[in-house]
């Protein structure tokens, strides 16, 4: 059965590693739906959060292939454990002065911030889980979306477990 899986992959923080991992997905015909990368608490390592859609068998194979890479230190399947997920969206919409008030209210409901304003556009920053981001987008769509930048989710397990 197709499902969404979130994998946290700790890798050596050096050039070529991300290309290698991306190559695994394309070479073996797996699809990445979201990807984000950043340094970890240890500057020698980076953390890659990958969201993939697939059935259990495919995802098991992906995990094993990732683990096989010498530059991969650890693969954690966050879909199997309590975890917290966040994504940031920056969304620029058409908003002439007459519409601004409405948009400010929406931003407030979504605990977002207005981070840029021009003659007829507004840019909002919102953090949240995917569903919240999707809801925001659909509410803002009628105003006319000019541009969207999303980070892809970052995820971490809950509590002390490592």
């Amino acid at each position, binding site marked *: 059965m197709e499902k969404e899986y979130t994998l946290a992959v700790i*890798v*050596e923080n050096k050039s*070529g590693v991300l*290309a*290698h991992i991306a*190559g695994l997905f394309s*070479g073996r015909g797996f699809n990445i739906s979201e990807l984000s990368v950043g340094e970890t608490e240890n500057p020698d390592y980076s953390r890659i959060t990958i969201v993939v859609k697939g059935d259990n*068998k495919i995802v*098991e*194979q992906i995990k*094993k*292939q990732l*683990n*096989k*890479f*010498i*530059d*991969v*230190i650890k693969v954690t399947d966050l879909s199997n454990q309590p975890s917290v997920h966040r994504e940031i969206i920056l969304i620029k919409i058409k908003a002439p002065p007459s519409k601004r008030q409405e948009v400010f209210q929406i931003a407030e409901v979504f605990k977002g911030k207005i981070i840029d304003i021009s003659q007829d556009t507004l840019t909002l920053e919102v953090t949240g889980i995917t569903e919240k981001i999707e809801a925001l987008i659909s509410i803002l769509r009628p105003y006319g979306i000019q541009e969207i930048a999303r980070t892809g989710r970052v995820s971490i397990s809950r509590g002390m477990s490592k």
Partner: protein
Amino acid sequence: MKLTGALAIVEALHKEKITTIFGIPGGVVIPLFDALYGDKKINMVITKHEQGAIHAADGFARSSGKPGVCIVTSGPGATNIVTGLATAYMDSIPVVAITGQVPTAIIGNDAFQEADTTGITRPVTKHNFIVKDPNELTSVLKKAFHIAKTGRPGPVVVDIPKDITTSEFEFDYPEKVSIPGYNPTVHGHTRQIKKVMDAIKEAKRPLIYAGGGIISSDASSELKQFVKTTGTPVTLTLMGLGAYPGTEPEFLGMLGMHGTKTANYAVDRCDLLIAIGARFDDRVTGKLEMFAPHAKFIHIDIDPASIGKNVVIDIPIVGDAKNILKEMNKHAVKLDIKNWQNEVSKWKKEHPLAFMDDELLRPQYIIDQLYKITKGDAIITTEVGQNQMWTAQFYKFDKPRRLITSGGLGTMGYGLPAAIGAQFANPDSTVIDIAGDGSIQMNIQEMATISQCMLPIKIVLLNNGYLGMVRQWQEFFFNKRYSATCLKRTKGCPDICSNPGPQCPQYVPDFVKLAEAYNAVGIRITKKSDVQGALRDAISTDKAVLLDFIINPEENVTPMVPAGAPINKMISSKEDAEAFLLA
């Protein structure tokens, strides 16, 4: 001790006990070749093409169990080894390829002979490195050899920019390696091993299906002990041939597309399939859903990603085959499987691999004679195609590391350079390349290497005038439309031709003259009655010999499982194929 990077590489190679290296120099590796010049411990073999160098390194590794090494220049030197890396990668062969790179300061500038070697080779290597800091050079080399040899072995590329080889630094070769992301599991889980032994004791029709993993873990004697104690029948993959003696009664032959009927029937009937160091490749399994339909599956492999990749496994064990078989042997007992053993022996008697013993010069006869004359004691390399399958079927391999063949990638042009590597690793052995007339031309230039190194390699060329294996598929499945497979074809030939005969043009090249041009002995054999003599003479001389056997052009490899069919559905002729296509 302060050394230049180039000398440090040579010193590191000494520490790794490397005695033979294959390669070709070029601009950025001149300092490295300079450091190797006149080295007393390392025999630097210059091939004629980098593909020859990497296949030779691979043949060296397969025939000796030690890592093979090649050194090539940047850009075209590096891109020329890609096929060889992929060949070694698919068959899990430990090869370390050192590639030169343009100086660090100009990497990324499209410099002369620059190629993104690590980028290009990443999908076909177990791992690769680029050394950008001279202080990392020795630890990277240590890691490269460690990674190539351990776990599931494989090729590793070390890309070294020119300035790294010329800068000076303190030489220190690490004794130990620590790679946080690399820690292969070698010991099988005790509880899993117990489960396996319980399953084996319960089985009524157990079958061992073993592959190249037995050879890379040197587990042949453990496998033999297990089989002799329990009485379990054994089938082997192409890569596994020799892992269990081909002449022992428990051996059913190779399985899969060109396997024996006995092996494929046994797979179809078994109730427990014990896969060891094999990977359920599609050439082995045929139609996956119908593979061993009555069996419970055990899979023992060093690579966790191999387990469960193609089939669902009931009892997996991750670990080194040798360790695990040793443990299994402690609990092995004689199994009460007389009925199964009888059933299997009956198939063996009813369906031996056979060929027409008529007046035609048939390749199976040649290989059978070669087996008898060499007493099964030669190291055989093959090219790819029919020649390879006939070898697998008719030369009986009693020992591991005697069949050197490109299984996973099926690389034409592999056999001749691989024979060079095998001969260097085994100077006292008879090394024979069983070749096809198409494949051998892909690396024929290495005849010059053979000649210059005075290697006594023998080439048994099965010259059918065709890209035979493809022609066979065309005969069986494409209505005998021999598109692009005739090697004799010239401009004057009819557009459509499926009838080779006396009207055909002369073969180009003349392999006998070609052999002579390379200072080797060339002999053409057209009659069956000349086969024994020619083989005997060739084997007994210490010169390189090319035997150009003009074989029956439309000889086929049978039995054959059509691609995608269940493996018990074997065909032997065009008529069978037609019936199969209709069904």
